[in-house]
């Protein structure tokens, strides 16, 4: 405990230097901006701005680049809520209830609540980073492919609630997602699947192109045909209309805390991260809700939980990078490269050999998150005004941003064409009332589950009992089985009730 306090005071002295504060602010401001712009995310921005940091102090470089990363997570939800267009792939879930809130004229409330949820998630995630890093690390170390696989089984089953319409359509979309996820080189065998002789397909389809195309573009196409010139009347945007009601606060508090918990744990596991955390949080909230039918129609829990989860995951993602030198995702790998260029080798020695750097960076995260809170709340009014821009101006601009954003990921026009293909497919699916969230989940989880299942089989030399012999894996599977049982029970009871009601009605006639 003393150690942490000493560390924090050292960190405060580092983080409160004028230059560090400046780079922190620059980072979070740029991060918010690129987060808001659809498609353009932390990864491309950090890659582009990294050369600028070669000549500044190591702490400042790291503080700025991290600021972009978590700042983008704050901004990412803005486009999701206002335009049904995920600003970053991690905020795709926020579209599900955020956009309906906008249609109900509650965009301000939604933005306000995501800012608060982001802050709560990030803050608690940060506490976990500083206080529980060793424990989270130990948990992450006991995770092998068996545990990942069982966790994903649980995730997929829990997420069966994502679909609001017919379960059959939900299943169809998960399957379509799984199929799309198959494209590319299979790492276990080296075989190239569904690549049709094109090297461009060896790396698989681009997640961001898929998310942009499936969520945002169909909305643009659908709205283009409407007579009304904008989504909301600019006169209806007042400060008062942005303030969440007492009911909103009550509904959001617990989801935020649960979301934070989910995010903090998943963030520390390499390879899972914010996207899965936000999906899981959404599924949990819908599962726990008294009236699940509100979800998908502007339920504030559906944005508060996932946003907190996403931001908590982003803070704890730093744990394996800073303490082990093992980057959990592409952004963290870039961060590590930035440190190495500065002559710092991230890893177990970092905290003891360069405590000023470690603690300075941690404290700067806190400062950065407070800056984001202060920066984002006044910006809500600005963002909401975007909705008052006429469609004929707004939509072409959004399409350009999507193209630039998707291009920035792989420097590939090929990916931009895929946005178009996914856009038309997404529009078709929207017309037929299929939902795309299950598709996105299938697309992400499918390849991961396959990879971990096959690796588990290699490790266990082909024995399926490995999944129940390992305690952590077994408890995930048990939880999944409980959910299935509960589903079956609820559906049977529902049917029995309906039958009883029918009999009752028949008798009383």
């Amino acid at each position: 405990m003393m150690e942490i306090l000493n560390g924090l005071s050292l960190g405060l002295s580092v983080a409160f230097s004028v230059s560090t504060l400046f780079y922190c602010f620059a980072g979070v401001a740029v991060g918010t901006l690129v987060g808001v712009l659809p498609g353009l995310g932390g990864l491309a921005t950090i890659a582009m701005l990294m050369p600028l940091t070669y000549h500044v102090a190591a702490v400042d470089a790291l503080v700025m680049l991290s600021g972009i990363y978590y700042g983008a997570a704050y901004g990412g939800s803005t486009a999701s809520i206002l335009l049904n267009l995920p600003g970053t792939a991690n905020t795709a879930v926020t579209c599900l209830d955020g956009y309906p809130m906008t249609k109900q004229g509650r965009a301000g409330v939604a933005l306000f609540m995501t800012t608060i949820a982001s802050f709560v998630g990030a803050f608690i995630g940060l506490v976990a980073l500083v206080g529980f890093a060793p424990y989270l690390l130990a948990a992450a170390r006991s995770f092998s492919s068996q545990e990942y696989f069982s966790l994903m089984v649980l995730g997929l089953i829990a997420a069966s609630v994502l679909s609001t319409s017919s379960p059959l359509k939900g299943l169809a979309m998960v399957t379509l997602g799984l199929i799309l996820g198959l494209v590319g080189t299979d790492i276990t065998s080296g075989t190239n699947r569904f690549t049709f002789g094109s090297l461009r397909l060896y790396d698989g389809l681009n997640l961001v192109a898929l998310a942009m195309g499936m969520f945002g573009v169909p909305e643009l196409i659908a709205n283009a045909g409407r007579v009304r010139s904008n989504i909301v009347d600019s006169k209806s945007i007042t400060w008062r209309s942005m303030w969440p009601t007492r009911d909103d606060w009550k509904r959001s508090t617990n989801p935020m805390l649960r979301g934070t918990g989910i995010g903090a744990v998943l963030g520390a596991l390499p390879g899972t991260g914010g996207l899965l955390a936000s999906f899981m949080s959404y599924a949990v909230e819908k599962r726990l809700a008294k009236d699940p039918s509100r979800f998908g129609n502007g339920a504030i829990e559906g944005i508060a939980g996932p946003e907190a989860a996403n931001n908590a995951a982003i803070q704890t993602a730093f744990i394996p990078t800073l303490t082990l030198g093992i980057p959990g995702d592409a952004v963290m790998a870039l961060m590590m490269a930035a440190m190495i260029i500065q002559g710092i080798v991230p890893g177990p020695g970092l905290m003891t050999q360069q405590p000023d750097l470690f603690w300075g960076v941690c404290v700067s995260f806190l400062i950065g998150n407070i800056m984001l809170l202060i920066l984002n709340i006044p910006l809500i009014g600005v963002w909401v005004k975007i909705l008052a821009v006429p469609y004929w101006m707004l939509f072409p601009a959004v399409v350009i941003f999507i193209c630039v954003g998707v291009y920035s990921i792989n420097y590939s026009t090929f990916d931009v064409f895929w946005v178009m293909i996914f856009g038309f497919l997404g529009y078709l699916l929207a017309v037929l009332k299929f939902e795309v969230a299950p598709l996105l989940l299938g697309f992400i989880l499918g390849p991961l589950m396959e990879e971990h299942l096959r690796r588990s089989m290699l490790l266990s030399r082909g024995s399926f009992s490995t999944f129940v012999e390992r305690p952590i894996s077994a408890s995930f599977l048990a939880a999944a089985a409980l959910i299935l049982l509960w589903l079956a029970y609820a559906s049977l009871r529902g049917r029995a009730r309906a039958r009883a009601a029918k009999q009752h009605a028949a008798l009383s006639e």
Partner: protein
Amino acid sequence: MHPMLATVGAALIAGLAVAGPAAAQGFPDGQDIRLIVPFPPGGPTDTTARLIADQMRQNLGVTIIVDNVPGAGGTIGVTEMTLADPDGHTIAIVGSGAVTLSPFTMPDLPWGPENLTPIIHVVDIPLLMTVPAGFEAQTFGDFVNLVTAHPGDFNYGSDGQGSLTHMSMEWLKSLTGMDLVHIPYRGTADIMQAMLSDTIQTSQSGILGPLPLVQSGELTAIAITSAERSPVLPDVPTVRELGFDDFVVTAWFAFFAPEGTPAEIVDALNASITAAMENPDVSSAISGFGFTPLNSTPAELSQTVDFYLDRWGSLIEGGLQVN
């Protein structure tokens, strides 16, 4: 240095150089050179390429456009390079995997190693063979004995079927008779995680991945795959020293031009990049990434390519599945 100053400075030096020896060689003729980097920006390879490009800009006196064309293990960028005119104005920095492994693993590759003109070999990355610190065998000899006594009981991790870290270990297995089970992973980070949880017992990974964990004592380095010991870990023996004379494997980066690029242009580019590599700022920055900076003649690079093509080709003919 302020970026603006750097630009102005580079432009001034460029102006001087045009009038100097570079112009006398006839190449470059004042036109821009496009350097294709088949990886995303920001990583150590991209940084290395940009450092070298900066020096070339100064000693050739032309603009060098660094163009990131990532995808499919670097082969998309190389494909683009092979389609360009062989006039020295389009070159690429290419990884060993794209040149020596993708011909075997990617049936759709529209080019082969024969379509590339070697310019210069610039960077070597030794693979470090490690075991978890708690593992019962802590030296290479003990490890080989233990694995040989328990065939099929232990695992090793690689970056995927047909990756360099897979091929390299398979080669070592064929030399030592060890029976280790191959577990493919998505990358070095995942392999390290698996080593720490004792899911796998060894791997040969690019030195930068395991280095911090070796320095902190969580992993033990039992051998290094390069021809010489690494200055970073001078106590770790090479596999060659341990009795396997032929065994040398490194990941490397080299510059190539399209097939048919005239020899005098290749020589001019080789001279320019050699000068860049001899700049102490460049070589110390590259060493900082755990890379070994070096330079070579085009003929030496050509031999290196043939060595690995021959090696991996015979392993695959011997029955190793790569795709």
